[in-house]
């Protein structure tokens, strides 16, 4: 059984995907948005902002806005113009011929679930973990990937945040609402985070820094009790006790769906043409954090989502049969 082709299918529903949906819907492309499935690893519907609290740098909200609330507004706006949103995760794509095939559920099924004349990829990025042996077992047992979800459980306890960027400092500052002390463990002797976040973190009496330290081991079998850190200059190791550890060392783009079909940059992000959302396959566009290894902001993701929808619209116009 073959399925009717949509004019455009948008895979992913963060700021990039939903902005693309708003623009595509207003251009009468009747976009189908595969928004993903619930998860706690920042690849869920709504994207990374779903795991944050206050967003202070999104223009138009002088008093800030809660991340999940902002994404709900994006979603409502896309639906208002007729975007069709489905809460499923794509399991396979076939970009070898048009209309392109997209599967949900069983990736081995002979026919794709959906077909699209164009595809807009906005699958975003998800949090990186340290990759230590007992990591998966300890998530939810003292090891966390979501400060806003789990900070509550560490009231008056000593915890650590691993990382040195904006997300690490945001988490550390947020966690001081609960914890008695937050140690930021960072492998360098200076932070990558923005100046304003650094100033706030340095001024916070509950935050301490452990510089030049790499986490090499999680302590505890069924419940985390601390970490072993290695000094990056001397190699010396020390065990530190923490009731909880939050990992915020960065993100990796969600590109596995396109393995072998779309070229990546050396650092693993999807390759797009300069100043455009076009990928190397005609009719396939990419926007947001899956292709942005430099800015990675909600506002730049939204901007690139707009570009992708306009690129798709013009491509469809030029290629009309």
């Amino acid at each position: 059984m073959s399925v009717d082709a949509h004019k455009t299918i948008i895979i992913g529903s963060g700021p990039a995907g939903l902005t693309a949906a708003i623009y595509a819907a207003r251009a009468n492309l009747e976009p189908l948005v595969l928004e993903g499935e619930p998860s706690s690893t920042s690849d869920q519907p709504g994207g990374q902002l779903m795991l944050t609290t206050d967003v202070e740098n999104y223009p138009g909200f002088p008093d800030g806005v809660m991340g999940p609330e902002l994404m709900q507004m994006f979603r409502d706006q896309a639906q208002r113009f007729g975007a069709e949103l489905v809460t499923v995760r794509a399991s396979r794509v076939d970009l070898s011929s048009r209309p392109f095939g997209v599967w949900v559920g069983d990736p081995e099924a002979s026919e794709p679930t959906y077909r699209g004349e164009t595809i807009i990829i906005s699958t975003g990025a998800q949090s990186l973990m340290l990759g230590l042996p007992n990591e998966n077992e300890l998530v939810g047992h003292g090891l966390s990937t979501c400060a806003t979800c789990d900070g509550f459980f560490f009231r008056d306890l000593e915890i650590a945040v691993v990382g040195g960027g904006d997300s690490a400092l945001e988490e550390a500052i947020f966690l001081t609402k609960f914890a008695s002390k937050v140690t930021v463990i960072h492998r360098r002797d200076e932070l990558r985070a923005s100046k304003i976040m650094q100033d706030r973190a340095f001024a916070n009496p509950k935050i301490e820094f452990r510089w030049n330290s790499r986490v090499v081991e999680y302590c505890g079998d069924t419940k985390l009790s601390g970490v072993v850190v290695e000094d990056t200059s001397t190699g010396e190791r020390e065990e530190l006790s923490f009731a909880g550890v939050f990992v915020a060392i960065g993100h990796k783009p969600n590109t596995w769906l396109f393995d072998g079909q779309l070229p990546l940059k050396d650092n693993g992000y999807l390759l797009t043409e300069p100043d455009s959302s076009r990928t190397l396959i005609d009719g396939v566009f990419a926007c947001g954090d899956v292709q942005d290894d430099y800015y990675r902001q909600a506002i730049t993701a939204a901007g690139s989502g707009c570009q992708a929808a306009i690129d798709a619209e013009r491509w469809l116009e030029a290629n009309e049969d």
Partner: protein
Amino acid sequence: MAEGITHLTTDTFDEEIGRAAGPVLVDFWAEWCGPCKMIAPVLEELAGELDGQVAIAKVNVDDAPDIARRFEVMSIPTLIVFNEGAPAKRMVGAKGKAALLDDLGEFIG
């Protein structure tokens, strides 16, 4: 609130879990937890579909921190299946309906 989902409190938890005839899936959640909100509609669907096989209940960790502490919940959403009054299976983190049904396979006839 959807029919079929029981909200358990510090006062009712032991009695309700103790007298349940079959397995009960308890969702530990809070208002401020994004992923918890994402799985709420999935649990409502499951409450309807699994009626008679697995009961669905919720514990708000803000209102009942003692219950969360007792079962060492340190991350939400955490879903614990209680069978014959005791924890039988624990799932941490939000996931989609198909994955949840997979996890509940052993409790579904």
